[in-house]
């Protein structure tokens, strides 16, 4: 364990961020990982709990107490090994995971949680700098071929696990670069895209093949969904050429706001703004939408909304306002009742720190415009009672807006893709498959498995990694009769 009395001696040290003024000038990451000594001290705070709630709070069940201790003892390389034993891509999670592990940390009951995510960050960055992350190609090949549709974290994790088990994994991606939302969605300032390339190199060396610009399905996706595909492959063909298929296409259908004025120019889905921005930073052409000098209204208070705020500020927006229908959550959760679960509480993201007006319990009634271009919106305040909302009469107001970004989440995966495969869906339109026991991750169609947002609906990167790993094991079992892949 860390130091027995470490948690009583050391306080939590959070990672340092560059000052707002500096970071707004570019799209580079601005969170600096802890140095060795700092990370060791933070590791010393871990109590090596008899029941490490952190580990069950972490969706990939990272064996947190073990690597905390190894870091405390300066045994970094072994810490990295333990970390990699449960998590294929700690470089992603240690940057953009909301860290439910820390909410569950026993120290969070009445203290400040162990800085688990920052230790994870320090471990993987050190591993990268020292060249400890090397390919682990399989000793023998099975000769089985598996197609993975989608190159988001779920697809990548599945492909890596399958390749390590000796299968030929081929990843199909409709967009021009690999990574799913990691690449196109999450801004560069939260996740440096070179990390994806770095990890891809490892996957390639382990035998994973990537095919970009290939859409698997029949009809191309509709408006609001990114698609760079030059080529379409029919499911039937895929099923013929592969021994198994994993559907890991994410949950890409954005939720719309069908109020009067929706058709006005200047009203966009969040990803219509964010993806071109990722492309611009990568040198793939300019973002056609600019927030420079504009009054930006972001509708939706989640992660995507935050990313729109951060990006707008980097463009040099005149003002940024964010609306959320839900009421303002409490500043501090009631820990005895919420721990070890993820609490509802006011969260201020780094993008909010960079400048943004936030307003809660607000519903948009109408977009108003001039000459086909949006100039503002009409909204009303809401009252929430027992989980039901009611408009407050007479509370309507108008706000100026030249750019409106809809960040209200994603309703479900592309139905056309699921339908093309003919897989059964759950009530929310996700691919239906269980996650435990015999037949887990298998869809209603033989040979076809599903994982990540495509199976569970809009979620988190860390959940996608979990599902990718577990689905790979299910596929391996299906192909070989048994599997040694860890879940």
């Amino acid at each position: 364990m860390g130091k027995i009395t470490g948690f009583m001696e050391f306080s939590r040290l959070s990672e340092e961020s560059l000052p707002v003024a500096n970071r707004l000038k570019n799209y580079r990451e601005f969170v600096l990982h802890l140095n060795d000594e700092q990370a060791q001290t933070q590791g010393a705070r871990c109590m090596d709990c008899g029941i490490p709630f952190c580990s069950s709070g972490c969706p990939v069940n990272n064996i947190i107490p073990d690597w905390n201790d190894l870091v405390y003892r300066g045994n970094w390389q072994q810490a990295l090994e333990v970390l990699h034993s449960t998590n294929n891509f700690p470089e992603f999670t240690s940057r953009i995971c909301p860290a439910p592990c820390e909410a569950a940390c026993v120290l969070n009951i009445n203290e400040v949680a162990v800085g688990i995510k920052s230790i994870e960050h320090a471990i993987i960055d050190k591993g990268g700098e020292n060249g400890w992350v090397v390919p682990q190609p399989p000793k023998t090949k099975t000769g089985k071929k598996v197609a993975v549709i989608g190159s988001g974290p779920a697809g990548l994790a599945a492909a890596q696990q399958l390749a390590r088990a000796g299968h030929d994994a081929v990843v199909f991606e409709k967009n021009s670069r690999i990574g799913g939302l990691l690449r196109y969605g999450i801004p560069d300032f939260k996740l440096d895209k070179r990390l994806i390339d770095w990890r891809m190199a490892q996957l390639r060396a382990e035998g994973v093949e990537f095919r970009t610009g290939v859409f698997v399905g029949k009809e191309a996706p509709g408006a609001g969904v990114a698609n760079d595909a030059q080529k379409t492959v029919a499911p039937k063909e895929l099923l013929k050429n592969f021994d198994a298929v994993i559907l890991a296409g994410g949950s890409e259908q954005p939720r719309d706001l069908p109020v009067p004025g929706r058709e006005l120019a200047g009203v966009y889905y969040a990803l219509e703004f964010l993806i071109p921005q990722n492309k611009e930073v990568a040198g793939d052409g300019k973002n056609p939408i600019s927030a420079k000098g504009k009054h930006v209204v972001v509708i939706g208070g989640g992660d995507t909304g935050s990313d729109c705020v951060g990006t707008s500020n980097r463009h040099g927006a005149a003002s940024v306002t964010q609306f959320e229908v839900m009421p303002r959550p409490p500043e501090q959760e009631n820990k005895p009742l919420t721990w070890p679960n993820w609490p509802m509480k006011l969260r201020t993201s780094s993008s909010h720190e960079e400048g943004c007006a936030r307003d809660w319990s607000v519903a948009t009634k109408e977009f108003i415009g001039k000459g086909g271009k949006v100039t503002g919106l009409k909204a009303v305040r809401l009252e929430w009672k027992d989980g039901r909302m009611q408009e407050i009469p007479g509370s309507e107001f108008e706000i100026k807006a030249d750019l409106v970004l809809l960040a209200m989440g994603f309703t479900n995966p592309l139905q056309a893709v699921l339908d093309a495969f003919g897989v059964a869906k759950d009530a929310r339109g996700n691919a239906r498959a269980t996650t435990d026991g015999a037949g887990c991750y298998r869809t209603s169609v033989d040979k076809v498995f599903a994982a990540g947002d495509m199976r569970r609906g809009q979620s988190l990167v860390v959940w996608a990694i979990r599902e990718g790993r577990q689905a790979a094991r299910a596929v391996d079992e299906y192909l070989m009769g048994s599997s040694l892949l860890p879940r």
Partner: protein
Amino acid sequence: MSKMGISTYQSYCGAQIFEAIGLNAGFVEKYFTGTATRIEGIGLAEIAGEAALVHHKAFGDDPVLANALDAGGEYAWRTRGEEHLWTPESIAKLQSATRTNNFATYKEYAKLINEQGQRTKTLRGLFEIRPAGAPVPLDEVEPAKEIVRRFATGAMSLGSISTEAHTTLAIAMNRIGSKSNTGEGGEDPARFKAIKGGEMLSEIIGKNRIASDRELKAGDSLRSRIKQVAAGRFGVTAEYLANADQIQIKMAQGAKPGEGGQLPGHKVSEYIARLRFSVPGVGLISPPPHHDIYSIEDLAQLIHDMKNANPSASISVKLVSEVGVGTVAAGVSKAKADHIVISGFDGGTGASPLSSIKHAGAPWELGLSETQQTLVLNRLRGRVGLQVDGQLKTGRDVLIGALLGADEFGFATAPLVVEGCIMMRKCHLNTCPVGVATQDPELRKKFSGQPEHVVNYFFFVAEELREYMAQMGARKVDELIGRSDLLDTRKGIAHWKARGLDFSRIFYQPAVPPGVARLHAETQDHELGKALDNKLIAKARPALDNKKPVTIESAIGNVNRTVGTMLSHEVAKRYGQAGLPDDTLTVKFKGAAGQSFGAFLARGITFELSGECNDYVGKGLCGGRIVVSPPKESRIAAEDNIIVGNTVLYGATSGEAYFRGVAGERFAVRNSGAVAVVEGLGDHGCEYMTGGMVVVLGRTGRNFAAGMSGGVAYVLDEDGDFEMRCNMAMVALEPVPEEVAALDGADVEPEGHGRVHFNHLGKADAVALRGKIEKHLRYTGSARAQLILDNWARYLPKFVKVMPTDYRRALQEIAEQQARQKEAE
């Protein structure tokens, strides 16, 4: 690995102390001939299969195991490790349910525990329950507030858990008419007082002793109704026993049979040391056996002593679930215990040694059913109440306990979880981050347990039980006790290692006529009416009622056992630990006293015996004075002859004893404050002593001062060979310094409470020693004392002072601290 009194590897070989659980009889007969196995199970093929499985894991291609060992998860939970009942999910659900008083959430918790599915984790998880009749409406089932009276919390000492956690349990259990347990650490007399309401906990216990305060309600009580008496006898005084509803003699602990409790030094705070009559900072180890029990007759004697110490308390004996416990329980029932606890293996805290957390003890299901069957068969069941404990968590657990024969139910871990325990398993490190199992004031500030939550928990368990009862058609718990015929093996258990299990011996019902009791229905006759004490009490009325000096003369014979204990109970009831003023009541006996003469003798009472004594003289002495000398007319050389038996002054906490003659073995074992002068000793003198003072004016036997961690002894070593007979593991021998302590006006009289005594640091040794010998002469007329005093200069250098090293260190630390404090002021 020292357990059950076995300390070497060789002694384990062939010791037959093991029991096989889940192995079939054919296999056991062939490979572990003679070992008991009661529920059958797997054989050679499955064992070979498992060995192959493990081998394959170790030498196969498993990528996880390539460079690392398996996560394991035996002791600490791991996601992919061993299955446990306490998981993040079950703990979170239980805490949330009790904090929000939400029965629906409790039922989710209970479901996680009860429906183990393919994750077979307990024997009871493999059972199925059959209805007793047609379902009955829920409101016809005995109310929960009646059912909770059958519940008790486990024996968790203040010491192992914090004052805050301990008092919270007591408050909760007293609010619902259930029982909490002191554990083996004594109890602060302040907790015996009635609460008016509105007081703060810290006003009662002491400002600097409570880190997380709470307001008390009218009618609350901090008193633990069950007072435990363990081998260590920490804080077992007449007052402590007088304040019990039940006195629990701990023969063993289910989680670690054959081992005593252990409290590491850093958990022994000033307060805990005070309650235990020991020294702050010095670790405490309870000896595994009771030094006054070597046979069932001895246990009967202890039960009798306890009954005398508190005639209105029920006397309970705690046994562990192991093969043969039925026979032991039958003996205990015949030895007149009123109550028996059968304790299962999975109780116990994270403070247990790692080697005891698993694979020590047996599931309670086995021990309970054996006990019930044996007692019913021998028609002894009706005389005793039967309680089961060991990781009871839900109403279903209670139901199965009742069906297997229990009247009452003990819970330990679950209520602690309700108080905030998150199974850190760091109890022994004193770093419990939720203030439950720590004495660190900073951490105790974080304690957030509430009696209301504990109350909610027990009501939930009772409600869950009621729902089961309604479904199975039972209106009263009594209807279910011992109905093992309603249990069956669960169908469809697929786990390959569960194949071949056969519970028929567990579910068996002895064939006895219908009238034979299968639950607690009678009371034991303790024959207290015949006690000599009844006469003494009658004559001592003026002393008892008005503190008037009284002197009584009485003959005594060896049929008079436990003389003075009921009398002391009368004193303790009225005056508590303070007792009567010195020399208020003097009883002069003539004759040969029976066992336990002057046991728990209270302050203000002097027993002078002209004659001799059996074993256990002054057991638990607490303030009284015992003087034994041969009759005047006797012509034997007193200093060469035995005058008192074995195990004298065992567990004494204060008082004085003067024996003109030699004592038997195990003199002053676990003495924590009494002062004694004796003219010679058998083996094992002053073993495990933690306080007080012993003066030996003659030879001692072997193994003197073994495990002694406090107090001092002065031994007259005329032949210069004492060191050979002294166990030097924890003590140092030194000459008695002659400095005159009177210079700094020190109080030369040891305080006699087992409190830290600075004179033990060596300033006033010679003076104190001489004072004791002078008293010995005065009380007993000892020729030996006369000789030594007459030739003091010649004898003094021959005295050896036996000083525990830990005690010296702790005294120095405290002295330095006080000096610093003085300077600061």
